[in-house]
């Protein structure tokens, strides 16, 4: 309890919404409710009374019990020790809670996020001298948080002045003083390895930058067709069963970000456990170390209190911004933002606010936009350039993309990976629909691809999408009048599109080889499939029957190529390509000979 704390009285309990009498309390302030000490947050004030949303079940709470205002808004602890952790929606460490309260989460537990007893090896910044002027973002020193991530200890926002004292290299606990700064007004700031930050307030930065390089996820349909930039914002909408969670988990596993924050917001307990159990086993493809060393999980399962679900997205975002401020590229995955929006709806419903669309409050769109806007690539105050990429899963009711959460999200984001029920039903995974998905970053990404992989990337990508679009059109005709109505060239187009779908777009997360695909391999596969189409089209033009080409064993081999050769075996794909070229050339020669013969 701080010196600011004040005591009031509970008046009314309506599920998670509690009304208290506590004059002078502020909007957004944290409150401890009742004898159980449940945590909550003030969301509205009215005269003497404050309306509090509680993060825990209010069963057993009575009117007349005390309510204590804590004097600060919902905040998180930011310091070394976050990585590898599993937190609930209000940043309580779930593993420590399990030690204290067993298999079920007891109410009223007050466990700090960061371990106070653990010591960290602090190395002061050699360039700093006593008496220097420091400000927000100045690097005070570093701590090796994990084997792969060096934690930069920065002067927190809001503190600046003359450096009076800095701790020498050594092991320190979180509460130890590592620096003292005297402000302009003469006040002294004691800085520790950690500080607190209110989650609903975006952390400051120097200036915003445009994204320049794509986030490589190792997923062909994403990287090659609908690329995302580091610092971008994207959404993965899809009905249940379409594979949202797998797409998100694949990004968490394979993306080339420095830090991954996975927020399971109102999701399935068993699926979260899958993440909790498998991530510690997985190796980071870029560093070879354990994936958990760069990962942090926020877990609010669907049966945990709804208000903590609303908070979890902000809690995750604030931690993402914290690592961004150190100059890292952070990816935050929120699964699912629809559950977050429903939590808003639930609370607004309890408050009796006027609903607008499907029961959602009028502020849905602005809240969504405000969350997504916290993503971006920025110049930080001291550590150079950092980014937060936000990818939100959206779970539209009935798979209807016109519902409020999906449509408002679509207005804000830059990359839209629309999952399709039809594709998922045919077990075409990832079921990202190439017709309705889009990316606003293709042009920027093309510069990277041209420099790093192949100058033909943007053209080849366009050709593949055009072929897929013709395939959709021709399929409609086939469905109406049957395949006989198509010309040979058109039938070969269908075959080419099928090849793109099977050899390039489909990618199994469960296949050990194919689960990750390097940009080089992505391009090699795309170029191979398109190459076959081009060569075949020429042959069909010469009069070679489509059936003859369809039956080629090399086509079946091309379809399996993705899982036969890993990203390191590009030469094998080149060999296959040479074989294919040879075979087509043979057919061409043979056909030309037959033609001469007939003459």
């Amino acid at each position, binding site marked *: 309890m701080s010196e600011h704390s004040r005591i009031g009285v509970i008046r009314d309990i309506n599920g998670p919404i509690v009304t208290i009498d506590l004059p002078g309390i502020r909007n957004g302030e944290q409150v401890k409710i009742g004898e159980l000490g449940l945590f909550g947050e003030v969301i509205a004030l009215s005269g003497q009374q404050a309306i509090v949303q509680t993060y825990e079940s209010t069963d057993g709470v009575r009117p007349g019990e005390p309510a204590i205002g804590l004097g600060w808004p919902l905040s998180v602890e930011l310091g070394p020790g976050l990585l590898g952790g599993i937190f609930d929606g209000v940043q309580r460490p779930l593993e420590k809670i399990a030690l204290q309260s067993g298999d079920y989460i007891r109410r009223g537990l007050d466990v700090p996020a960061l371990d106070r007893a653990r010591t960290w090896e602090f190395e002061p910044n050699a360039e700093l001298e006593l008496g220097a002027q420091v400000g927000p973002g100045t690097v005070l020193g570093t701590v090796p948080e994990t084997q792969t991530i060096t934690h930069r200890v920065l002067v927190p926002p809001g503190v600046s002045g003359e450096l009076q004292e800095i701790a020498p290299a050594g092991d320190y606990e979180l509460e130890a003083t590592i620096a003292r700064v005297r402000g302009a007004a003469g006040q002294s700031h004691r800085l520790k390895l950690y500080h607190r930050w209110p989650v609903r307030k975006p952390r400051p930065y120097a200036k915003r930058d445009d994204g320049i390089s794509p986030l490589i996820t190792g997923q062909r349909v994403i990287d090659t067709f609908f690329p995302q930039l580091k610092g971008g914002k994207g959404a993965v909408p899809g009905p249940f069963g379409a594979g949202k969670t797998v797409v998100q988990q694949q990004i968490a596993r394979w993306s080339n970000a420095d830090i991954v924050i996975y927020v399971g917001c109102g999701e399935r307990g068993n699926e979260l456990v899958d993440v909790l159990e498998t991530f510690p086993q997985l190796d980071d493809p870029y560093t070879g170390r354990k994936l958990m060393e760069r990962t942090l999980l926020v877990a609010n399962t669907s049966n945990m209190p709804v208000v903590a679900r609303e908070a979890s997205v902000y809690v995750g975002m604030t931690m993402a911004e914290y690592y961004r401020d150190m100059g890292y590229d952070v990816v935050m995955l929120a699964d699912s933002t629809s559950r977050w929006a429903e939590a808003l709806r639930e609370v607004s*419903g309890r408050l009796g606010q006027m609903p607008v669309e499907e029961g959602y409050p009028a502020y849905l769109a602005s809240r969504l936009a405000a969350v997504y806007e916290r993503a971006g690539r920025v110049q930080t105050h001291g550590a150079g350039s950092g980014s937060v990429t936000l990818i939100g899963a959206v779970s539209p009711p009935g798979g209807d993309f016109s519902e409020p959460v999906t449509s408002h999200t679509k207005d804000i984001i830059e990359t839209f990976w629309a999952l399709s029920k039809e594709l998922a039903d045919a077990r075409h995974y990832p079921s990202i629909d190439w017709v309705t998905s889009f990316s606003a970053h293709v042009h920027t990404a093309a510069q990277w691809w041209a420099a790093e992989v192949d100058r033909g990337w943007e053209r080849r990508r366009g050709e593949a999408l055009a072929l897929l679009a013709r395939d959709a059109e021709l399929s409609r005709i086939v469905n109406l009048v049957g395949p006989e109505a198509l010309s040979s060239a058109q039938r070969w187009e269908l075959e080419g599109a099928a090849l793109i779908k099977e050899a390039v777009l489909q990618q199994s997360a469960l296949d050990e080889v194919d689960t990750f695909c390097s940009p080089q391999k992505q391009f090699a596969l795309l170029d191979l499939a398109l190459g076959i189409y081009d060569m075949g089209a020429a042959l069909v033009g010469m009069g070679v029957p489509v059936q003859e080409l369809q039956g080629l064993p090399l086509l079946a081999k091309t379809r399996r190529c993705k899982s036969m050769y890993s990203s390191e075996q590009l030469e094998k794909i080149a060999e296959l390509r040479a074989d294919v070229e040879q075979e087509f050339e043979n057919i061409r020669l043979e056909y030309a000979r037959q033609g001469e013969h007939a003459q």
Partner: protein
Amino acid sequence: MSVKEYRTAAEARGGLLIMRATPGVAFGDRVQIEDHSGTRRNGQVIRSSDEEVLVLVFEGTDDLDLEDTWVRFLDEPVEIALSPELLGRVFNGLGAPRDDRPPILSNIRRAVAGSAINPAARTYPREFIQTGVSTIDGLNSLVRGQKLPIFSGSGLPHNRLAAQIVRQAKLKDEDSSFSIVFAAMGVSYADAKFFQDEFASSGVLRNVVMFINLADDPPVERLTLPRTALTAAEYLAYDLDRHVLVVMTDMTYYAEALREVATAKGDVPARKGYPGYLYSDLAEIYERCGRIHERHGSITMMPVVSMPSDDITHPIPDLTGYITEGQIVLSRELHNQGVYPPVHISPSLSRLMKDGIGKDDTREDHPRVAAQLYALYARALETRNLASIIGADELSERDRRYLKFADAFDERFVGQGEAEDRSIEATLNLAWELMSMFPRDTLTRMSETDLAKHYQGSD
């Protein structure tokens, strides 16, 4: 605080009793109500302030008057008594006997509301359960600790399928059977009787606890029934180390009861009149299933959800699908063609299948067989649509093969006897028999090794 008793109520409507000037009542507490005839009813506090307390009356508010009604706030949560004696018994939604036998006496009493399992304490479910039904075992495998609902429609044989699964479910290579918790909400007498007879005739009755609220019982009681049943399931699983299979039927009636009370309370409706908290409320029920570290027992759940007008996008199946780990969808079309069980595999899914099948659990080729069958069937259904427009004669030979496959698949793979208990090997062998209708090169999802080992086609 102690028991408080009041004589008068201020309002009674739609299952709610409103009390005025009854200060200090705890939210969620149990309430006892005695009407003018001396009959007792049960209730729960669902809103509490000094001025006004809302009591949900499980038996409903019919026939209550405001002057002559005693209301006792019992200063304890809604809870049930638990003991091994539960097995073989029948209770109502509050845990009171329905079988003319004495109530359970035990000093173990637990609040039915339950609390959330710490995700850090959970274990990922990965033990394959063989149900003997090909469409489930082969394509949508169930594992211990999973919640896999049956999405059905009125008149479809979901009860027969659920009963068949209860009869046949076992771990591969293990003989231990499940304890069964059966929760019936708003079902007809005939449906409840069907299950009772089923349990009796298959000799599992002593291993079953039933919680029953029939269609003509008070609907409000349906709100607490699944929670009561799951509290019993948790006791059987985690105190008595049993593997529990919870069958809940029908979640649609549960959700309708929730809507009824929400409307009476004046809650803001979200979709189709259902309250905005329907998702959270359903999650509180479904998420009580799973596996926990270092506990021997487990809870596997198979809720039945009947889709109003067969609409899978209706809020109840829709929200259920977002919480459960997949769904088994029954199809009226297959049913009308006489296929039992009429499982429509395309929209059916098991999310936990991937880690429960394969080399060490079922058979090496299983994951690929499932993927291949799905792909072939999807293509075959497209062909069937095409054939219905242009006629089967117009199809190419390749397409006609797909058509033949679709018919064989429906008849032989999907269709099976109600008493037919297929082993997973039998299911997979049957799959290969059907896949071998195609040339080898069509089976692109299979590995060369699989083809060498199992392919029976001619080329």
